[in-house]
């Protein structure tokens, strides 16, 4: 990785309303990773944390102009630059 002063966080560490630019997607399984890619979470895309479900999980995120629900555990494996 090139040295840069940009902070790297996992997506679940962002606060509600905060945005982040995706750097890298890891996942518990090939299936889940492919699903996330298919739904538009690709490197470079900007994601906003919109809302957290009343029971604390999953998260409602805004990506590519629509709302997507993803569990915290899966967001924890997505690296972002907070914006």
């Amino acid at each position, binding site marked *: 990785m090139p040295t840069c002063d940009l902070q790297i966080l996992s997506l679940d560490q962002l606060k509600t309303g905060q945005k982040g630019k995706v750097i890298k997607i890891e996942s*518990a399984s090939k*299936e889940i990773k492919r699903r996330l890619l298919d739904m538009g979470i*690709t490197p470079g895309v900007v994601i906003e944390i919109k809302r957290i479900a009343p029971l604390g999980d999953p998260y409602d995120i805004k990506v590519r102009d629509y709302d997507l629900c993803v*569990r915290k555990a899966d967001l924890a494996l997505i690296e972002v630059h907070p914006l």
Partner: protein
Amino acid sequence: MRIALIGNQNSGKTTLFNALTGSNQKIGNWPGVTIEQKVGYISKGNHELIDLPGIYSLSPYTIEEALSRAFLLQEKPDLIINIIDATSIERSLYLTTQLMELNIDMVIALNMADMFDKKGISIDIRALSEKLQTTVIKISALKRSGLNELIDIIDHQSYMKHQTQNIFKPNVEKIIGHLVNQIHQEHARFIAIKLLEKDPIIESEGLDIDKWIKPLEQSYKQDIETTIAAGRYDYIEALKAQTFVRLHHGDHTTELLDRVFLNRWLALPIFALIMFLIYYISVGVIGTLTVDFIDGQISAFAGFMFDWLQSIGASTWSASLVADGMIAGVGAVLNFVPQLILLFILISLLESTGYMTRIAFFLDRLFKKFGLSGKSLIPFILGSGCSIPGIMATRTIEGQDERRMSIMLTPFIPCSAKLPIIALFASFFFPNHAGLVSFSLYMLSIVIILLSAIIMKTFFFKGTPSAFISELPNYKLPDIRYTIRDVYDKIYEFIEKAGTIILMSSIIIWFLTSFSFRLAYGVDVDQSILAYIGRVFSYLFYPMLGELSWATSVSAIQGLVAKEQVVSSMAVIGGLSADITEGNLILNAPIYAFFTPASAYAFMAFNLFSAPCFGAIGAMRKELGSAKKMWQAILFQTGMAYVLGILIYQVFTIIGGLL
């Protein structure tokens, strides 16, 4: 022409399908592809339109995507209509880029044209069409605009023919080109890209794919699937920048409604209230109002027919066949049509307004604890109408364990056919608390589902990775046309079943109850053929009924044919066993006099949780993928029901004795 209609979930696909085909629909089956989809006809039957499942990609990992893909590759449609939601255009076009790789002509229907002004959307259709080399037509499925133009273009085949588009970066395209040259099959580009993605379903046919993948993974520093997916989205972003402008983002109404329905404190109470109202109104209030009334009408009609048939000289046995067999059996089931109409309307509204996905969203955390997904809730709620569509709806659940558990647990939800059993018993044995008792059974079913989930998770399912990835669509006003059609289809099916399976079973039950083994008519029901058969089973049910009742036992077993048959059978036997004219309720017959509230509740519980009807068993077999797993499910369900029935009877009887 054979046309496949394909698009994302919530893209308005079903609305478009209904608008194009009207009432000209049937369920289609294709040998080789295990997919059952609606088929409709357009342009006076010249073209066949197939409604494929709502999907986001042609990846190999979800069942619906794999099936749609198999359909496109094997059934060779002449044309694809790809419906696109203009308000989430990037994600919609992602599927389009994959469809473009197939060697099939395509027309893009750009939906939500009626929303363009409101959202400040402006699209350069001509430029979009030119860049994609595909005909694009602006439509509104809801307002039915642009549909004539769409049909015209299909009729005259005046759409652009398929052309290969190179959408990836040059070094990726170069490798795709190499592979295409070595694949001597139809859809070579599609297959080449799938091979690059290491697609587990497509065979590599001796090609050394790794040789090509390695340098790509090294140069992009990420795995190949990411490179391909990102390549598609990069292409779409560039395309969008040149053709698409949107001023207002988000949906104001949705934001407002979500502030209430997804509120941290209000979400769960509101949900509980909505569910309570749905079942309390349709099962409780309306139930007690309509069932007594219609039941009275039907028994009056049965009595009239009996007298009339005898007055024109029909023999007693034939008059009895019509009155006590056919009318009593079918009538016992038809009683429940008004309740079902209301229940189906309310479920359909939950689904079509977008609230159902939100329930899945905020209950996921809770369900995850029990080894299920929030998405399991959708099959469960649909299952309260009918288990079969409920079981089919499990296809959207990502995790295999969660999906299998949901399939096995959906039949535990009291479906509409079990509703007659609940309504009948609740109103007869608990006349002052019928609504509450009915509701308690729905609550009990949730407890049983969660309990079973824990048992299954502990003993049978060792855990595959699970996820909850779901679009949260905007709230929509219900489409009245769709709701009416949806409810009509389901009610029609229920009535059709009453006129066929239930009618036939009722005649058989009438015969077995009216005749002895020596084929003598008019014997006492206790001497009938059925009584002898039933006595064998009555020992099984003794621990939960506290009585050896052949009539009840034999009726419970008929629940396999259709759950409403339990009530029909009890009605036929009850009617033949005694001459009840006043307040003609099935359970007034002396043959059922042994029932106590405890045994009535236990019997209801057994019928709710034991093996579902043959239709639902078939659906379980299909979705679980093997007969062995199906038998395991049936054994589990019936075992659970049996133990529960006995427990309820014994515990309630002891408590009743103490009071």
